[in-house]
């Protein structure tokens, strides 16, 4: 009996050790210009990029190990705490800015990414990674905006965030379920700078959102289904959510508010911990080629910053009005804020929800 038990204990420990063992044997590759066998790719869930990954695997004989996340914070947590040598991750613009600041990203060798020329010029030198002093850390993958999605059979065409407060829409409004995004919307509605939250203007934003409460159906960052089935009439959301909803129900339209709204860009970057930078750059270049990028757009309604790819897209894709809404000059990018500001926003948002 005793022996039997010790045997189990032993087996148990073995499993534990086998998990640890693999940690130390990987010594860093020198980054030679040779393709590695495997590539770790960590992307947002639901981009539908399985098809292009398969094409890459076939063309270059590199196995892509693909993993998905559902928020920037989740990606950062995994990257910082989990000791996984991801080769490519996909942070949003202001997170790129933070990661550069914290020294988490490897500088890209743009000679390996000639297809970067396919990217629309306005996305080539964004504020969050301007590429000054010749250092470039990120390449845009997909972009989109935050504005108002609405069901044209239920509401009049909205022009401003103000319309969400219309008492006629009681119980049929959704806004983003995110402290930063929802409070920024309220700040914009009140006429404040989206990237300068402080105690005073957040207090006003909080009151505005509390006033909105009777109208709220739910706080959601994916209101697509509710829009399609008619439960939600008007939503503060992303244009790609609206584009997905449009495919199911053509009455769902999207418009940018006159306050400006926001723009986001998801970017391909290489963490410093990557052991096969060259292969990662080859992958990035592959994704940026016009044909591949156009194929990617077939599976995701997000806006594609790849100009060359747009020419290859089918009419159906280009004709989804919500994928490429007209963006006003006043639309802004999120900037990375100070931790105190973020904490203040989190607290304020919790107080809104607790009402």
């Amino acid at each position: 009996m005793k022996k039997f038990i010790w045997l189990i204990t032993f087996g148990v420990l073995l499993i534990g050790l086998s998990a640890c063992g693999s940690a130390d044997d990987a010594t860093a590759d020198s980054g030679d210009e040779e393709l590695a066998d495997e590539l770790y790719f960590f992307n947002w869930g639901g981009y539908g990029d399985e098809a292009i990954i398969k094409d890459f695997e076939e063309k270059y004989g590199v196995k892509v190990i693909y993993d998905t996340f559902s928020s920037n914070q989740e990606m950062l947590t995994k990257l910082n705490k989990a000791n996984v040598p991801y080769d490519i991750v996909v942070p949003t613009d202001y997170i790129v800015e933070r990661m550069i600041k914290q020294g988490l990203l490897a500088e890209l060798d743009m000679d390996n990414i000639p297809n970067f020329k396919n990217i629309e010029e306005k996305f080539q030198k964004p504020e969050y990674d301007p590429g000054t002093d010749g250092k470039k850390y990120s390449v845009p993958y997909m972009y989109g905006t935050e504005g108002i999605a609405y069901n044209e059979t239920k509401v009049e065409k909205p022009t401003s965030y103000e319309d969400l407060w219309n008492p006629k829409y009681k119980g049929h409004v959704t806004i983003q379920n995110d402290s930063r995004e929802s409070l920024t919307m309220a700040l914009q509605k009140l006429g404040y700078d989206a990237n300068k939250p402080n105690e005073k203007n957040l207090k006003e934003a909080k009151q505005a959102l509390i006033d909105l409460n009777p109208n709220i159906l739910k706080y959601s960052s994916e209101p697509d289904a509710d829009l399609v089935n008619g439960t939600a009439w008007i939503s503060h959301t992303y244009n790609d959510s609206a584009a997905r909803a449009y495919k199911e129900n053509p009455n769902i339209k999207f418009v940018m508010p006159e306050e400006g709204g926001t723009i986001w860009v998801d970017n391909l970057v290489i963490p410093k911990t990557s052991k096969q930078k060259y292969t990662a750059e080859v992958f990035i270049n592959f994704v940026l080629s016009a044909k591949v990028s156009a194929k990617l757009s077939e599976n995701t309604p997000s806006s594609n910053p790849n100009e060359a790819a747009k020419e290859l897209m089918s009419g159906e894709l280009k004709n989804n009005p919500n994928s490429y809404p007209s963006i006003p000059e006043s639309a802004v990018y999120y900037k990375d804020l100070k931790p105190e500001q973020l904490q203040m926003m989190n607290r304020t948002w919790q107080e809104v929800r607790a009402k």
Partner: protein
Amino acid sequence: MRVKTKRILFVYSMLVFLFFYIPMIVLMIFSFNDSKLGTVWTGFTFDWYFKLIHDEQIINALKNSIIVTMITTLIASILGTLAALAIHRYKFFGKQVVNFLFYIPVVIPDIVVGVALLAIYGWLHVTLGVPTVIPGHVVITTSYVMLVVVARLYGFDSSLEEAAKDLGANSWQTFWKVTFPLIFPGVLAGALMAFTISLDEFVIAFFNTGPGSGTLPVLIYSMVRKGVSPEINALSTIMIFFIVIMVLVVGKRMTQTKK
């Protein structure tokens, strides 16, 4: 039991079954729904089943889930049953501590286990993968196995064991011939519980998986932002039918051996 009571019980139980199965039926129906955003019916299609077969990501997640669940169930059943025997049978120094230790996983939110393990793995530079999910799953399931087996032992007539010993059986024989068959339903119930918890467990798996090692619940959760694909409904439908067939086969064999 009186016939009337029996009838009421029967009707009541059927209603509970209805509660169990109506959402399942809805789930299955939506696996044939033409719409990608599955809360309204738009038309009939088999597409999701074809897409599913070719979806490497889902197949891979399913494989990971099966590995994690099987190993977890095995380890938890053994550890839990052994512990239950000791706890029920013997008085020993530190029993309070042992009991307390087994209650921690029951009263601790899963998210704490997941995060705490992530902190430890990070600290020890362990690379995350399928094996790193298993320790957490065993932690949360072992106590359940132990509880169920102890509940079984509680009404267990120890005179049977004494009788076996009086008849000259040694401890080993007594265990396998008398004790184990009697507690087996408890062990089975415990194992079933561990299996169910582990297969559906999301939080710990979420924090403790690495690239390519995400389990099915982790994959599904990551889809939430851009809409859960009806492929998942299709997969659930297939899994349910697979398990039903398995149950029928095992059930038949069990009744046969009983005879």
